[in-house]
């Protein structure tokens, strides 16, 4: 008898639950859509959304901290020391710029959007923007170069550095030779950076 009751009870439950379910779905048929028509309407991103990286190269001092902290090594920075006669100016945060930055590449295809590069930057020049539509057909186009130095600039800066180094070396050699001649200890002074080179007319345009 219990089995019979269970049988009919089972059928009854099946019918009523189906009815309940169908009532719910029918109600939802008339609920306005919760989705957005994406390319036409966009969701407002949270204030601190992490998307495409942007580097304000004017403020970059080439400290390489962002590159070092990057867990996926997607930031590549090369620097060239400036010679003492060059004035590279200061950043908007007041830091003195001492290095040329000929290469500042970010492979955004590798980027994992962790945002770790943003925190160590002393001048706050690398930031995450809210741009997220930057798909490309060619993967190479996802490597962003932020440096604004032209090949000539780079060449010039390198030559200058080389010249300065050679002069410094020559000076050092002269100093050590003089020190060897004279017994008085002036080696400490000779080791100091070379004094401003006479006649450095043009500054590499890296402002």
């Amino acid at each position, binding site marked *: 008898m219990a089995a019979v009751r269970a049988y009919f009870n089972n059928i009854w439950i099946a019918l009523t639950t*189906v009815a309940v379910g*169908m009532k719910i779905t029918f109600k*939802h048929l008339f609920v306005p859509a919760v989705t957005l028509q994406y390319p036409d309407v966009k969701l407002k991103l949270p204030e601190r959304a992490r998307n495409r990286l942007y580097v304000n190269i004017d403020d970059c001092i080439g400290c390489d901290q962002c590159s070092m902290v990057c867990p996926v090594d997607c930031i590549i920075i090369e620097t060239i020391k400036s010679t003492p006669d060059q004035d590279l100016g200061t950043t908007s945060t007041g830091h003195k710029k001492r290095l040329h930055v000929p290469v500042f590449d970010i492979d955004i295809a590798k980027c994992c959007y962790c945002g770790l590069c943003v925190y160590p930057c002393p001048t706050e020049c690398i930031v995450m923007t809210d741009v997220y539509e930057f798909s490309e057909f060619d993967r190479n186009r996802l490597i962003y170069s932020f440096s604004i130095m032209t090949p000539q600039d780079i060449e010039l800066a390198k030559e200058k550095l080389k010249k300065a180094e050679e002069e410094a070396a020559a000076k050092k050699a002269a100093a050590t030779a003089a020190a060897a001649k004279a017994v008085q200890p002036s080696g400490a002074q000779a080791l100091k950076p070379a004094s401003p080179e006479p006649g450095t007319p043009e500054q590499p345009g890296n402002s």
Partner: protein
Amino acid sequence: MEALENLGVWGSILIAVVWSALPIVFILLYALVTLYAEMKIAAHIQDRLAYMRTGWHGTLQPFADILKLLQKEDTISSAADRKLFRLAPYVVFMGTYGAFSAIPFSSIYIGSNIDLGVFFIVAVSSLVVVGILMGGWASNNKWSIFGAMRSAAQMVSYEIPTALAILIAVMITGSLNLQDVTKFQEGGIHNWVVFGGPLPLTQKLLLIPFTLVTFIILFIASLAEVNRTPFDLPEAESELVQGFNTEYSGMRFAMFYLAEYANMFLVSAVTVALFLGGWTSPFGSFLSGPVWGLFWFIGKCLLLVFLQIWIRWTLPRLRVDQLMYTSWKVLTPFLFVCIFGVGLILVL
């Protein structure tokens, strides 16, 4: 027509071809509409919008889908049995389309007004089972063969409740010819078989519970016959990829798809003709006539198709044992009781 008949045998062949090609025009149009409706209803039930970018509210999407299917490569896997693989979609569609010949679309249009009507439909749809088995086996793929086996087992078992439910309607109307069955229900909504038919009041009142139960059971069984959710085990995409048509692509896949949608309409049409008054107007002689008949018939069928879609996006899939339990231990015994009750009432 006269001029064509004078042409002799070719004229009669031409007339036969045109007459029998009318449903395929309808099936194609209907498939376009249903394809669109299915996606839209699914989306709105889930609080989405579905296609919005092809035409106004995505109305051109079905055309785009069909264009895509037309230009797709027709692939046949190297391990497949090529002959049977190619034949299967045609067999499936043949079974479905053959059944359309006995559907009374209107008082003036029925493919072939044969006496056997609904019996013929049940018999010819069994070709579909063989076609599915053929496709599944020829694909030489585990998913396909499992899907085909499940499909055949399911369709064969659910043929019994379907046939019994049809039998009850036939007992009340006294004819297998769907045109006669429809005419029997003329005169308004209260004369439909689902509400007891045009019988004396006491008989009618006694019949109503039985006919209502039969109607519901026929609807459930027809869902299983066409492999729709919650009985979509043969195509269970979470278990079997696509079931028997996993390996199919391009036009052959489109053929299976078309047959599936045509089948949805077919079972609705049988249910409508037997229980919901076919092409008769629900308001008696108001708004009746051959053209209105077509409108009422297709309207009622589309209503049932909507119900099928609605159920699809409501209920989860049944397990195999639950499927068999439903057929053999619930639907069939209930129908036996109904047959007994209806017979008793009709004799009294």
